[in-house]
């Protein structure tokens, strides 16, 4: 049966293979083949991610041996997306989400799928009452009559402990989740912007004058009417707030705990509740209600200020030594790039205080590809094997500034700008062009000088914001 599912290319065949009794000869054989196939699949995915040749062959070798672990559908989807194979990426995202709806990466996968095709947004959200598809084979329960009483008690106790642990386990506040999961940063920025502009600004920030006037007992009838309309007109504030909180939770997954772990959201939730409860007292002109409103208003403005600072941190990336060191460290931790023995890898000079409006996750991805390519290229060339990274700023005749991140190397391998853009470079560099286009950036190969064979320069406009906040 398991073999038959696989032959029919059923994408859930992996589960059937695992379900075969591991103590049987077939079960042992199934596991051995799964393990062999897994190595080939992972190799294929790795090659696809890096744009290295042989990805297809490795994947086909895996296919010939045994079905793929559904967990690999996600890296496969991401690699396809990065290479512009969006249709295939979409397919793999869907498979991943169908088979692993509770995987820690599932929320990110949903967002990425939604970004590929907005019409698919929400389709793969797990329903609250829905039982997720089991990731391990389901075995028929033993007959109840055969379960000794003490075992039933132990199971009940374990379930209670698990429930207790789940109830009291705290997730992460928003800022920490953003710091720990760079891949979620674009989504976090979007959600933060939504709650700020749709709720905090238009319903809370806008009533500042009226709240102050009310506190002093000087509010005009017009100000009272305006305040009542913003706070109690239209969608109830409590529901609007819950809607935003749920949007965060749905999009960012169970690691986020806005209600308990995030102080700003927790206090803002209390403030919203307090405002909702004040409607009658405010209408009656109760002075204490005005004081309470002022407290709640202040709490919500504090959250707004914190979110504004978070959003700025997320969308802007400082191009400094820390970033370059992170890029180098990550690339050197990879198998192939880590094995190249370098005579020198120099970071600097780095122009101080330079930032670009690119999500850090994307910028690291771009620079990792450039650095990896340089390291692998010098590894294939004769010594000396040297790499240097530096950051400069070029003043444009328009008064704008271009940030130039340059990676120089001593490899004698030919590389041209055209080859990168035409994706004739099968080394991952072609992948960066799509990312750079999103940010009005460019990549260029420059002739080497002073002992360097060549330099690959990534150019992005420096982040400069107008006084009104509208990018010029």
């Amino acid at each position, binding site marked *: 049966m398991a073999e038959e599912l696989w032959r029919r290319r059923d994408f859930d065949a992996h589960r059937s293979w695992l379900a075969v009794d591991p103590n049987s000869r077939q079960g042992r054989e199934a596991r051995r083949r799964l393990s062999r196939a897994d190595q080939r699949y992972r190799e294929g995915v790795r090659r696809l991610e890096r744009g290295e040749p042989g990805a297809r062959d490795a994947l086909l070798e895996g296919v010939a041996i045994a079905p793929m672990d559904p967990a690999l559908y996600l890296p496969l989807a991401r690699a396809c997306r990065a290479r512009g194979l969006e249709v295939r990426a979409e397919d793999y995202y869907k498979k991943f989400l169908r088979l692993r709806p509770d995987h820690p990466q599932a929320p990110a996968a949903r967002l990425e799928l939604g970004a590929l095709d907005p019409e698919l947004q929400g389709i793969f959200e797990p329903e609250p009452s829905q039982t997720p598809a089991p990731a391990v084979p389901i075995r028929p329960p033993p007959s109840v009559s055969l379960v000794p009483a003490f075992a039933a008690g132990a199971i009940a106790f374990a379930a209670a402990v698990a429930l207790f642990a789940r109830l009291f386990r705290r997730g992460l506040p928003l800022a920490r989740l953003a710091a720990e999961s760079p891949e979620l940063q674009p989504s976090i920025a979007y959600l933060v912007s939504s709650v700020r502009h749709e709720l905090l600004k238009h319903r809370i920030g806008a009533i500042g004058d009226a709240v102050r006037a009310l506190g002093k007992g000087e509010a005009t009838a017009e100000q009272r009417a305006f305040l009542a309309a913003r706070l109690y007109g239209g969608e109830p504030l409590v529901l609007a707030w819950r809607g935003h909180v749920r949007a965060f939770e749905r999009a960012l997954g169970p690691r986020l705990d806005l209600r308990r772990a995030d102080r700003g959201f927790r206090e803002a939730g209390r403030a919203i509740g307090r405002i909702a409860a004040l409607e009658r007292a405010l209408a009656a002109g109760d002075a204490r209600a005005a004081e309470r409103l002022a407290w709640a208003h202040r709490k919500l403005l504090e959250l707004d200020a914190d979110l504004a600072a978070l959003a700025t941190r997320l969308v802007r990336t400082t191009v400094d030594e820390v970033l370059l060191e992170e890029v180098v460290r990550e690339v050197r931790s990879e198998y192939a790039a880590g094995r190249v023995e370098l005579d020198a890898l120099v970071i600097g000079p780095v122009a101080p205080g330079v930032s670009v409006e690119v999500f850090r996750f994307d910028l690291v991805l771009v620079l990792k590809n450039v650095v990896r390519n340089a390291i692998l290229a010098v590894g294939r060339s004769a010594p000396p094997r040297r790499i240097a990274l530096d950051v400069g700023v070029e003043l444009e005749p328009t*008064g704008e500034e271009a940030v130039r991140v340059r990676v120089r190397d001593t490899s004698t391998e030919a590389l041209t700008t*055209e080859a990168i*853009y035409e994706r004739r470079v099968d080394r991952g560099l072609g992948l960066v062009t799509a990312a750079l286009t999103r940010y*009005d950036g460019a990549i260029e190969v420059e002739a080497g000088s002073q002992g360097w064979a060549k330099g690959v320069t990534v150019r992005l406009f420096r982040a400069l914001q107008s006084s*009104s906040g509208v990018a010029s």
Partner: protein
Amino acid sequence: MRRLLVIEDGSEYSDFARLYLADEFEVTTARSASEALRMLAAESADAFLFDLRFDRAEPGTLVGDVDATARRLFGGDRGRALRYLQDQQGALILAELRSAGHAQPAVFVHDFPERRLANLRQLYGSVAAVASFDARAIGALLSR
């Protein structure tokens, strides 16, 4: 009366200047760098009022090399490079005028970031900007 040279691709700036700045300035209009240079060669001006975006101008009249811009800043994408040159044309025309020795005060109606305005001053001397068509503020800057 002092002379104001308006440099724009339409007539919004000059109509505005003729209505609200007519007490202080005699207004003339140039629609490209080359036309501005021709007019300045014939008769000088006391100040410049610049539009920044020239999206109605013929591409052939724009200052800037589309291919070089495409290669350096936009990965060879000529379409994006052309849009960039259109969007930033006022600043590029100012560069041309300064190169030709015309150092008069220049004013843009644009919400420039502070740092960018400082850069423009570093490159081109007397440059100021206001975020909207505020006649009083523009008049004061042109008269500095």
